[in-house]
């Protein structure tokens, strides 16, 4: 599972102007995040679902991404229904389940899925280079843009190193058990991961310098706002406005 696994493709969504995508994702996320109504949040899910289908992403990998988010949401479900006091719905053993708590959980689940799915569909389908470029064009300071780029780049490096080290362990017959050997091996893995990623990221920077990098990232594909970009921007904004007025 690569971090940039969705960024290559030639669907309608992939070809959209990253500026339009970032704007829509931002507006949509803010509107969804501040919304307090369950029907509106449920309706919000529809938009990213349509985008995901238009982007022709593999259902399985999208779901596996969402599973991560819902892992966190699960924690919310474990606590909130019992602690958020309000009208009692019933009891689960010694614990009382409150109506407000459950409603809040539903709301959080809908919202977080809608926002993450929207980010996957819109931002995940552009290469980081394009996103970085778009952010620059939208007036985000260079420093922040670089921070974003290198964060991404080094996350990928760490992930690559992890896969490699794990492979090196596996081909020599490593099987995780609950003993000292396993713990020590994992400790080495994490230690090596940090040290090696650090050194490798330094070498990547030197490689970039050797090719004339002086603190500015240039971009190959220049985007022009096309009709489809305006359609996305308009429909995204309209949709978000509609969610806002929905009660």
């Amino acid at each position, binding site marked *: 599972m690569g971090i*940039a696994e969705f*960024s*290559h493709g030639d669907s309608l969504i992939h070809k959209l102007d990253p500026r339009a995508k970032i704007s829509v994702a931002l507006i949509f996320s803010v509107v969804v995040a501040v919304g307090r109504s369950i029907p509106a949040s449920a309706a919000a899910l529809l938009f990213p679902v349509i985008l995901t289908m238009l982007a022709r992403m593999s259902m399985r990998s999208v779901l596996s991404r969402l599973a991560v988010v819902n892992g966190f949401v699960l924690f919310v479900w474990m606590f909130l229904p019992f602690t958020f006091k309000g009208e009692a719905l019933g009891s689960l053993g010694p614990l009382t389940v409150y109506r407000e708590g459950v409603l809040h959980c539903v709301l959080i689940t809908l919202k977080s899925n809608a926002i993450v799915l929207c980010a996957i569909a819109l931002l995940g389908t552009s*290469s*980081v*280079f394009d996103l970085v470029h778009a952010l620059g064009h939208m007036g985000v300071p260079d420093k922040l843009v670089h921070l974003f780029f290198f964060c991404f*780049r080094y996350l990928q490096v760490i992930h*690559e190193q992890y896969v490699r080290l794990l492979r090196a362990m596996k081909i020599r017959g490593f099987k995780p058990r609950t003993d000292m050997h396993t713990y020590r091996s994992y400790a080495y893995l994490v230690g090596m991961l940090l040290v090696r990623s650090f050194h*490798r990221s330094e*070498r*990547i920077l*030197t*490689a*970039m*310098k*050797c*090719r*004339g*990098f*002086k603190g*500015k990232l*240039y*971009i*190959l*594909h*220049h985007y022009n706002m096309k009709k489809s970009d305006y359609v996305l921007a308009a429909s995204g904004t309209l949709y978000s406005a509609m969610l806002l007025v929905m009660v």
Partner: protein
Amino acid sequence: MIRLRNIRFSYGSRSVLNGVDFSLDRRERVGLVGPNGAGKTTLCQIIMGLQMPDSGEVEIFGKIRRQEKDFEDVRSRIGFLFQDADDQLFCPTVLEDVAFGPLNLGKSPQEAKAIVSETLASLNLQGYEERITYQLSGGEKRLVSLATVLAMEPDILILDEPTTGLDEETTCRLLEILTSSDLTYLIISHDLEFVRQSTNSIVTLRNGVLENAGCREMGEGVTGRAMIAQR
């Protein structure tokens, strides 16, 4: 074009270079050999300004280079192929990676794209533009790294083991590209046959100093000694 005088360098307490003198003039083609861990890669990193020597003088393109800033224009005029291709490729696609250098040099996207397809074609890599860099095979990575270096149209090439992982045909192709150009270059390699054919002099780095640095003849003695160095 490159002149090193009495370079000393150590990693912490492990001294690697003990007074290296080296020079490379226009149109010269030099092979650098020596046992593993002799400090060949380190020497090249010093030329590129990626490591600063403890003492000694680095003169490149007629100017003494001391600090990071002095090396900025050195780096855009000397193409350095890293020993490990994984360190060199960092963009998602081959196109973006090869275009990175030309764009940094101020080329327009159109020009950069033209340079990319030209360079890729010269290495028999037509149609690789949209390939994902980290999914390439070892040899392909090597070739693409070479393309990223060549695309900058450098005055001098420094190739750190360019032939590892290349098949015979590709090695020949590389030899052809190198010898048919009028490039100045320094090649580090353990592939003695390749060094002999691609360069007109060989120097050996051993025990922290360059041996037969003055020898510009391809005498058997030189290669013989280099051969021993390789064992």
